[in-house]
């Protein structure tokens, strides 16, 4: 059975990646899972300078989900290269570095530093963090900014370039189209949805930043609809993200059009979740006579005569 997937210049051994910000830099979870069973690791976001992150409280559990407002806490590019990359580089899995920045120049600077480093197969560009004041969501909710960032980065790398999209926009398909037009190899979606929790005893917001990003099983239906929408809009591969906790969830994402998936919040419940999902997907394929998992991608069967919802713009 073929589980492999070629994305730009990167060859993934399977369709299961771990999502940025939910798996650190790989070393933390290593005692609890076999990292070589993953298709790839998307690192915690890396910015030019270290970021201390937001004050507590940073997380809040919600119904079948969680809010976070970490604020892109990360070690910065120098420490990433000296302290984190050697471990990642030695792993038998693909390494995708997630880059966060507060200006186009910063994205470019971080990428150019990484271009001279071995052992990185791709980049995922975070234009959609809802929890920082500068950059982040400000870029991801403006189509022209998303377009410019993609263009500037595409010029500077032949490695796989993935743009991570936010669901906090009206027509996510327009953003995916902009990425495709500027040469992105893939789009990944969705980042978290802006959400909020309130403590009725103190009458305060639970999170120090008032709002945060909602993730977990609670957002899976939204994520599926967004992947479906983007699949109708572009022909570049889509990496589906959003509440994937079981292999069944992963198969759903493939059927609506994702070529690969990322496991996020589920890794907090079980650091071995992504490896288990990869194994479960293989068993499903074996049981259903699927010889190449690519057969499932976009394989959603829509009954004849049923039109796509009006907001879905077909390419």
């Amino acid at each position: 059975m073929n589980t492999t997937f070629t994305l730009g210049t990167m060859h993934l051994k399977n369709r299961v990646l771990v999502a940025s910000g939910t798996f650190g830099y790989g070393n933390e979870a290593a005692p609890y899972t076999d990292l070589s069973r993953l298709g790839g690791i998307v690192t915690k976001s890396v910015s030019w300078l270290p970021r201390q992150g937001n004050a507590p409280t940073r997380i809040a559990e919600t119904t079948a989900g969680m809010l976070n407002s970490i604020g892109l806490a990360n070690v910065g590019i120098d420490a990433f290269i000296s302290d984190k990359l050697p471990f990642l580089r030695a792993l038998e899995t693909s390494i995708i570095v997630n880059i966060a920045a507060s200006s186009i120049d910063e994205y470019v600077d971080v990428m150019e530093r990484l271009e001279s480093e071995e052992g990185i197969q791709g980049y995922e560009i975070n234009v959609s963090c809802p929890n920082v004041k500068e950059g982040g969501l400000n870029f991801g909710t403006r189509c022209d900014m998303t377009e410019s960032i993609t263009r500037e980065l595409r010029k500077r790398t032949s490695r796989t370039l993935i743009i991570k999209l936010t669901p906090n926009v009206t027509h996510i398909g327009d953003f995916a189209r902009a990425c495709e037009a500027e040469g992105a190899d893939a789009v990944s979606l969705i980042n978290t949805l802006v959400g909020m929790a309130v403590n009725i005893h103190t009458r305060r917001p639970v999170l120090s930043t008032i709002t945060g990003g909602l993730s977990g099983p609670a957002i899976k239906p939204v994520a599926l609809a967004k992947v479906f929408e983007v699949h109708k809009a572009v022909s570049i591969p889509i990496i589906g993200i959003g509440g994937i906790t079981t292999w069944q969830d992963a198969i759903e994402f493939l059927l609506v059009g994702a070529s690969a998936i990322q496991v996020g919040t589920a890794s907090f419940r079980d650091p071995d979740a992504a490896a288990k999902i990869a194994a479960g997907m293989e068993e499903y394929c074996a049981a259903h006579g699927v010889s190449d998992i690519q057969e499932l991608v976009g394989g959603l069967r829509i009954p004849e005569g049923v039109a796509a919802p009006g907001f879905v713009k077909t390419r």
Partner: protein
Amino acid sequence: MPVINADLRVTANDLIAEETWTLRFHSPELAAQLRPGQFLNILTSANVDPLLRRPYSISNVVGDECEIMYSLVGKGTHALSQKIPGDTIGVLGPLGNTFGYEKSFGTAIIIAGGIGVAPFPFLTRELQQREIPLITFLGARNSARVVSRGLANLHVATDDGSEGFHGNVIAALSAYLDDHRVENPMIFACGPNPMLKAAQAFALDRGIACELSLESEMACGIGICQGCPVERHQGERKFALVCTEGPCFDSNDILFQEQQHA
């Protein structure tokens, strides 16, 4: 020693005081390697609601069994209280650092507030095995919530005066030290943040070494979610993570913000 991420069998789950429970589970591997101060991240259900694990201090180890103590707070602890012997819970650990019981001091002063008593039966046993003298100050809302098992040389303080000293646990300790000479003491404290903040100030004022075991909202327990920061008093990094750099901290290293004890 191998880390554990497994469904383990519950052997006992008992109500021991008002809304306070101890739960035991069988794990020779964890029993052999857990140390006082460490914690476990526990998943009560295969359902996704509640979604996240909950961190629990290890309260004792008895033979091949490990014990945690909890009070009923929300849906996680409610689900835990429904467990009966033979059920399983998902256990990830051992996690975090240990109390500094190997440091050089003469007498251990344990300060526990509410369910913050959880790690101290295990620490008490360790100190007794090392023949280190200890005094314990336990604060509780009322007499019905006093959990004295596994503790030694106990002084109780209750908010309503229904047992022991009428007032907070730091005031009880302060009164005790006014009347008694304690050689080369070191404080080990665990409880709600206002109590820890008071313990920190008291230790600083009296020049007593002090360790605080912190609680925090936590998702992963292993340093990947970055969800459990505590502000550091000094140094290059503004925050430390409770899960991987704690939960036990030198009280001088920690800065309590207003927000943290809301």
